[in-house]
């Protein structure tokens, strides 16, 4: 039961973050690129003021997998690097924290684009 509740928290947190974006898309005609930018930047600032850490405690991947979580990882990485390395951490921390995700995205996406062709849509 306890495990179920934990997964439910993941589901609800992730779902709600998507619902907010859906309302923005439907009501303001924001394109997906703008939504993603908005989410990352929001994630960074919510983490900086300490709010997002609490959301992650409850929602776990429900909070880290949405793009706000990408901002969370960036921000946490910067703070950690500053604590460890001082000033230069401002520049190294963010990218270091998300390096694996970006490298994976670039490399696998490159391979994918070589082997796969876009298909037209029917509806």
């Amino acid at each position, binding site marked *: 039961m306890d495990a179920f509740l934990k*997964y439910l928290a993941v*589901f*609800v947190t*992730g*779902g709600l*973050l*998507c*619902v*907010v*974006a*859906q*309302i923005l*898309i*439907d*009501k303001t005609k924001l394109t997906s*690129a703008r*939504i*993603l*930018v908005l989410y*990352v*930047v929001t994630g960074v*600032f919510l983490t900086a003021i300490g709010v997002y850490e609490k959301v992650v405690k409850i*929602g*776990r*991947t*429900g909070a*880290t*997998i*949405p*793009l706000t*979580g*990408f*901002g969370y990882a*960036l921000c946490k*990485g*910067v*703070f950690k*690097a*500053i*604590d460890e390395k*001082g*000033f230069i951490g401002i*520049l190294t*921390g*963010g*990218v270091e924290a998300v390096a*694996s*995700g970006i490298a*994976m*995205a670039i490399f*696998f*996406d*490159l391979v*994918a*684009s*070589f082997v*796969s*062709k*876009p*298909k037209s849509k029917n509806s």
Partner: protein
Amino acid sequence: MNLEQKEYSKLVEKHSGKSNVFVNCLRAFLVGGIICVIAQIYNDILPFSEEVSKVHTTVFMVFFGALFTALNVYDNIGKFAGAGSIVPITGFANSIVSPAMEFRSEGRIMGVGAQMFVVAGPVLVYGISSTVVVGLIYFLLTR
């Protein structure tokens, strides 16, 4: 024949189709939630420490986002789920692979290489720049 600008704007507003926000939100909620739960399950079965597992999970989800895009499936998920498949990191991967695939006809360098970040580029630009700003403030406050 005359038509006032303001009058027409009102007319457009009146006749524009409305999205079914409730149904769209429900779908976004379900798909977005399921994607996160899949990530959590994967995360929980990994034998690594919490920090390392988290990184593995992100990479795993990026991989699947790219894979389903390459299999010509992700756009169909997106049609159903809307933001539910845009907001998770799988959607970020989708936004990189889809232009890369689309522009492969323009060559590997200026096509695939340059167009890959047409949607995801701004995410990195503003994501990283905002951490520099936030980091600078943090640095000044903690000295």
